[in-house]
């Protein structure tokens, strides 16, 4: 037995209005499954794919942003609209504020910030090229780790980073989802080499 939805909404909105929420989350049904979207005071801080443990994910957010975590579709309506527009193909930019507070390592944060700021829809970049752009040309593997632990997939577009050896490489949501996202964005398929699942 849970509380009536309208009462939960009211309480959640009051909490946000009074500045009592460390983070707000919402579940959003999309063509790639049910996403969990968590927003901190500065922007979207975590996106989880269907199949990830909600409890573990929210515990991770609690450890990073604080335990006052509230659920509210209404308070995240703007973010939900942006994600829905992306999946409908109406707007590929995924233009929402991001908060990389859950990324502890400065190197990883720099890699993900650059990825977010500079690799737009339709673009694809290799792990090595991204490493070079943050001034560490030999750190392709470390960039791969940054992508593998990216807390904000989709919005920080790690699906646009692929192995230099060809193929799409691995992905938190699975390589099929990575291919679908790249197709949705009209990125050129990389078919010159065999499908490899290396790196990532």
């Amino acid at each position: 037995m849970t509380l009536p939805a309208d009462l939960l909404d009211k309480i959640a909105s009051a909490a946000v209005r009074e500045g009592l929420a460390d983070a707000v989350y919402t579940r959003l049904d999309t063509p790639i499954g049910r996403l969990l979207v968590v927003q901190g005071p500065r922007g979207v801080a975590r996106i989880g794919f269907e199949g990830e443990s909600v409890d573990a994910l929210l515990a991770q957010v609690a450890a990073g942003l604080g335990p006052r975590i509230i659920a509210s579709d209404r308070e995240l309506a703007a973010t939900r609209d942006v994600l829905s527009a992306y999946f409908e193909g109406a707007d590929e930019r995924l233009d929402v504020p991001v908060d990389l507070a859950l990324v502890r390592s400065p190197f990883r944060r720099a890699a993900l910030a650059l990825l977010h700021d500079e690799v737009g829809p339709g673009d694809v970049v290799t792990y090595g090229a991204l490493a070079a752009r943050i001034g560490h040309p030999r750190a392709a593997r470390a960039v791969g780790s940054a992508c593998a632990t990216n807390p904000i997939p989709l919005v920080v577009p790690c699906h646009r980073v692929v192995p230099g050896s060809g193929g799409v490489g691995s992905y938190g949501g699975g390589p099929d989802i990575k291919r679908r996202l790249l197709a949705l964005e009209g990125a050129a398929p990389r078919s010159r080499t065999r499908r490899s699942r290396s790196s990532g």
Partner: protein
Amino acid sequence: MSAVALPPFWSLVETHGAELLVHARRIAGDDHGEDVLQDALLRALRAYPRLRHADHLRAWLYRVTTTTALDHHRSRRREVLSAEPPGTAVEPEHYDDAFETLIEELPDGARAALRLRFVDDLDYDGIARRLGCSAVAARQRVSTAIRTLRTQGIAA
């Protein structure tokens, strides 16, 4: 950020919200239960990051809800008393009027304990859970309240 690993607040609301609403309604009346619960959860949120451990969170929420309900009750009574001629203070309708009249002079905490015992018919473990105290303390509160009524010459 807190030093202890507190669960995400909303998981507490989802797990205990419904029973807390029942509790709020018992103390504050059906018409005020939702307002009391909302206030109680906002109070709990304010205090949440400062909790020093993650034990007994359910009992803690009951305690916050009880306190909030009693505060609401007090402020409503004040409003009514200042707006109405003396003697017309209203109690939540679903309580037995005679019972409320009997206990109306008692402190709020004592009234809450008596309502849980005699209106809700809870045992001392149940009262303890609602008030966020031990069963021994719950028994003490109820018996102290009854003793007070007796010394006032009200109860037999």
